């Protein structure tokens, strides 16, 4: 806990420059942008949530990012994906590609909906956001492999992955697969929509890559005890 408060609230440069530092003092907390978080009266996780609220009353809060709003249309997963797709800071283009992808997915699903017989109409998912989220979830690996040096040899050891790392890997694989392995004359949004639709039904290259990783981890199960953390 910091001792003098006035020094903490100015734009800050650390005394020792670590490799990753930010202009915010570590004292600042992350902002909560969603409206629903503020409408809950008293019916939450009593101890932890209340402590968190107390802390938020006392501590200064960072400014909200410029890609984030409180509207129903802003999605943190989608924002992350757009940022990952962005090249040379061209957010306009990345966002354009994303909206075209979602539009494309919606078009295809609506076509299928109209062509389907009566009994199967309810099963066809038309919401592109749910399709995208489900496809990303399907692409997430459960375990990852880490190179660990033991006795001069390098082994690929299966390790558990955190949630953030898993979603990052899923998004990264999706983007690289679309950039590298498809025909160069197709647009990015077409490639992405094809890949997302196939990931939704557990097909496609990304799912295959995930399954190969799982198989490798399973085969290297014997080395799992090499992990010391």
């Amino acid at each position, binding site marked *: *806990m910091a001792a003098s408060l006035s020094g903490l609230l100015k734009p800050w440069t650390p005394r020792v420059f670590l490799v990753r530092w930010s202009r*915010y003092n570590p004292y600042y907390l992350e902002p*909560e942008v969603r409206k629903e978080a503020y409408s809950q009266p008293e019916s939450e996780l009593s101890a932890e949530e209340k402590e968190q609220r107390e802390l938020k009353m*006392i501590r200064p809060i960072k*400014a*909200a990012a*410029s890609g984030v709003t409180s*509207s129903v249309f802003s999605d943190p997963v989608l924002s992350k994906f757009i940022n990952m797709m962005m090249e040379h800071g061209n957010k*306009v283009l990345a966002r354009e590609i994303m909206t075209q992808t979602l539009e494309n997915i919606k078009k295809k699903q609506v076509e299928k909906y109209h062509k389907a017989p009566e009994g199967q109409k309810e099963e066809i998912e038309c919401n592109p956001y749910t399709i995208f989220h489900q496809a990303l979830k399907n692409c997430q690996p459960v375990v990852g492999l880490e190179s660990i040096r033991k006795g001069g040899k390098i082994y690929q050891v299966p390790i558990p992955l955190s949630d953030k790392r898993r979603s990052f890997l899923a998004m990264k694989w999706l983007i690289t697969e679309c950039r590298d392995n498809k025909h160069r004359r197709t647009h990015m949004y077409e490639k992405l929509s094809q890949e997302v639709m196939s990931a939704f039904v557990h097909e496609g290259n990304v799912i295959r890559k995930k399954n190969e990783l799982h198989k490798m981890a399973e085969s290297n199960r014997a080395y799992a005890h090499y992990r010391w953390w």
Partner: protein
Amino acid sequence: MAASCVRTVGSFLGKCGNCSSSLNTVTSQLSRQVLSRQICVSTALKKNLAAGGPEKFTVEFIQKQVEEFDIGKRHLANMMGEDPENFTQEDIDRSIAYLFPSGLFEKKARPLMKLIFFPLHEAVQWGADGRPFHFLFYTGKQSYYSLMHKLYSKILNIEKHQDRMRAKGLFSQDTKEISLDTSRWLTKEELEVLLVETISSNNYDRFIQLMERLLSMPYCNMEEEFVLHYRRPLEARSKKQMVPVPERDDKGVAFSTSDGRRKTSNSSVVLRDCGSGRITVNGQEYLHYFPVLQDREQLMFPLQFMGLLGRFDLQCTVSGGGRSSQAGALRLAISRALLSFLSEGEQETMRQAGLLTPDPRVRERKKPGQEGARRKFTWKKR
């Protein structure tokens, strides 16, 4: 009575031999009245001064001295023929300079009638035999070191308690923790005020380390009161917000103005409570000025968050920076202008959503020996 408050030249000489050099003769005003009445001091009285132990300046004692000073002041005013009610300190100084003219060059050596409160440590610290009262006097920072000793003895007590619990088999890690989130440690200055002596930053760091060590032990709630004595509560951040003053223009429409900054953009917004929801930026429609959806979303963000989208009319001016930083500057200005139309709880939710913090991120400078702010030149082995 007035004479008792006036420092006499004789008592200055008398006390010199006994006291430390920091002890100004003016303390005679607050210390023994017996001494301050006399012109010269005998050796018997010198011993009497120091024999009493460390001075106990209680509140009653100080109040009594203040009363006596007031009575003396009124006597002096009467003597000078002036109004006793409105006799200020400058008048006192003038009167004493008139009544007791002194040719001494050192201004501080001249006769003085004033109430001066000295910090506690300037009182006498040793007895008649010259032995100091506190066993840590020769460390130079007796109260600091005695505090550290006390703290360490508390740590040892807690460890003994832990051992006893372990012996009985009742030791458990999950005892009630002291809640530390809403308070902060004393700053070094505050600690100095508490201890009445100066400490170095090393000393302060050691003190905090020892406190943290105390808090890391399982049974620290035994000493909760002691720990909380050295912590100050943090006040809620919402009280430190500057809310712009709402005004009314000639048509009776309430409006408020505020500024915002982001990177190198500066913006100013006039928020009018019309009910139309029109936004004008630098004279143009916001749809023309911000063709990108993200910027328009940022403009709408504060209003949408509070649910007041169609209620206000915005007249904005912005200059400098790029597309996104102008939008960010406008967002900050809109949030600030909106504060005057909101209640306290809503202001707090805006703050927790991050709308009221100015973004401190600016472009990082390029460093010499590197190609950019972070990018280094290509590493060549030879």
